[in-house]
């Protein structure tokens, strides 16, 4: 059984005259696989990530999404998180006054509680964070600062990957994780992501550029345009897109 099964998904922006953004998108993701979703601006890539996470600004009008065979669309946002859905945000949100460390711990324990697991002890938690943070070049000072407050673009993305590493999700959705990163930061972040590749974990990597996929090498590449997947292939498809651009897909769909 696929970990994630999206079938004929239609969705629009919430509200009476909301625009339809996803128009019959289907995708199956098995444990251990890394799928890249590429496409021009406005093709619905970020919307897909928000709908998987449960953001309330959208309305699903048709189709189904299951996670491990369970109806994902019926679940609350935090319930999805506890079941293992993690979204690395394109624009991570600031939470002033709440230390990153506190936030990590509150999140981890909230998820564990929902799964009926015991809270992590303080020494275990500190050890866990110290270990994972070091690999991502995140120092103690950053962990004490408010969540994403005053972080540079690169720091924000590294902090997202740290959260992912601590929460150990089943399905990681990375929304334009490469945006705003210079080449060195891109390397650190990619290494962090690669370290999390595992046989029981799947990833959906959303990106506009092929550049990221040199570092995080996908098993499958999908081209998205106007709300559906218009072509799928292996990692070589990304190189082809890099060479030819998205123009031909945009014409096809028009």
């Amino acid at each position: 059984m696929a970990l994630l099964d999206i079938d004929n998904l239609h969705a629009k922006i919430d509200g009476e005259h909301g625009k339809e953004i996803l128009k019959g998108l289907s995708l199956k993701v098995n444990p251990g696989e890394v799928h890249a979703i590429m496409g021009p601006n406005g093709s619905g890539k970020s919307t897909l990530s928000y709908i998987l996470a449960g953001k309330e600004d959208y309305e699903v009008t048709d189709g189904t999404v299951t996670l491990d065979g369970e109806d994902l669309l019926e679940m609350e946002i935090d319930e999805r998180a506890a079941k293992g859905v993690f979204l690395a945000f394109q624009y991570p949100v600031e939470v002033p006054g709440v230390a990153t460390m506190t936030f990590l711990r509150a999140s981890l324990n909230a998820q564990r509680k929902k799964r009926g697991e015991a809270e992590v002890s303080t020494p275990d938690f500190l050890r866990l964070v110290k270990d994972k943070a070091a690999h991502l070049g995140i120092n103690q000072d950053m962990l004490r600062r408010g969540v994403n407050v005053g972080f540079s673009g690169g720091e924000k993305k590294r902090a997202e990957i740290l959260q992912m590493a601590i929460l150990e999700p089943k399905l990681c959705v990375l929304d334009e994780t490469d945006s705003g990163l210079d080449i060195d930061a891109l390397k650190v972040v990619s290494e962090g992501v690669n370290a999390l590749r595992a046989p029981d974990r799947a990833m959906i990597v959303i990106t506009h550029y092929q550049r990221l996929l040199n570092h995080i090498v996908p098993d499958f590449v999908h081209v998205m345009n106007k709300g559906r997947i218009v072509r799928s292939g292996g990692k070589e498809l990304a190189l082809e897109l890099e060479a030819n651009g998205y123009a031909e897909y945009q014409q096809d769909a028009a």
Partner: protein
Amino acid sequence: MPAVQETVDQVRSLDVDQYKYGFFTEIETEKAPKGLNEDTVRFISAKKNEPEWMLEWRLEAFRRWLTMREPDWARVSYPPIDYQDLYYYSAPKRPSELSIDDIDPEILATYEKLGIPLRERDALLGIASGGTKVAVDAVFDSVSVATTFKEELSKAGVIFMPISEAVREYPELVKKYLGSVVPVTDNYFATLNSAVFSDGSFVYVPKGVRCPMELSTYFRINERNTGQFERTLIIADAGAYVSYLEGCTAPMRDENQLHAAVVELVALDDAEIKYSTVQNWYPGDKDGKGGIFNFVTKRGDCRGDRSKISWTQVETGSAITWKYPSCILRGDNSQGEFYSIAISNGRQQVDSGTKMIHLGKNTSSRIISKGIAAGYSDNTYRGLVTAHRKATGARNFTNCDSLLIGDKCGAHTVPYIESKNSSAQFEHEATTSKISDDQLFYCRQRGLDPEEATALIVNGFVKDVLQQLPMEFAVEAQKLIAVSLEGSVG
């Protein structure tokens, strides 16, 4: 964040109404007849065995009060208060001043329920398990029922007792300082308090003494239709230091109850007073029925050079709050501080802030105010910073932040700044923000449910002020914040 977690659990275990101190204690009481006239004032004074000068002081206040009008400038609205329909004195019948064992067991049980140990040995047990030592004065309706650790404090020379006792035992001190910070004629509610105050705490810390433990008063209004008018007077003599905590609760009732307190602080040369309040009076139900009307005058006088007074308040209760803890910076190089968290939910109305009055040279003050409005509530910060013409080198920093939860509530900021000295430096910063849907979505995506997420975001917002509270209070306040905001999202 275990405290947040615990709170959320606590909130869930409660039913619709989340106010957990809303119980009523069945107890025999002795009351003054309903209504207010000179006889009421005489009755109270006689009950307290007061000397003649105290009665005269009260009567003068009462006559003055008759000529005054209730202030209406605050951004609160409430039905007219019928001052003749209230009891001004209510006391538990059993005498309690002798020893803790004479206190009605019902009252002891009440305070235990509130988490306030009045038996010193219980308090000491608490210390054994990791807490710090706190001496408590418990005020039940109109009288002080117990003051703990009195002996240990008196060894250090610290006087900590009900003010009714201090009037008899230390008349010179009381005469000298009572009404010297908040004059009898100060304002409508302070004048009313001066006429009918029944009890409260008196603290005197002698020269050079650092009070060996935190002092605390716990106020409880129990009786129906009873006003509570307590009076607190704290004096830190030259070089002394004292930290004082105040807490309060009341039963849930459909009608409104009146609370009009006066607190006076006096800090002499090099003295420091830290006054912390966690105000958790019953706020009324979700439709705005019932709740305490809280009209309080709190003022500190930095009378000596290099003295310092610091107010920290966490305001979560009351239907109406009208309260401006202030500092008069009279001594040269004196400092005043005001740290406030004011939370309003349901139909609560808060009009609170501070006054920093710079009179001496090189005085400085600092105001950090965090207002949080949820539900249908209104939350106003009202502040005055003023420099007298001789207040050379006065400095003030004000930071006033408001956070809105939902779109039916209001936050208002009314700062007044007056400087009559060209060397004064006053800074004012203010922000108003909303808990954004993006913040909630982000937190929930990481596994927090809506209540946990809101509590976390709000605790982050008020962090600067929470850090100013004594440790145990900070934890208590953090829990209280989450409970107060129950039902404010979703």
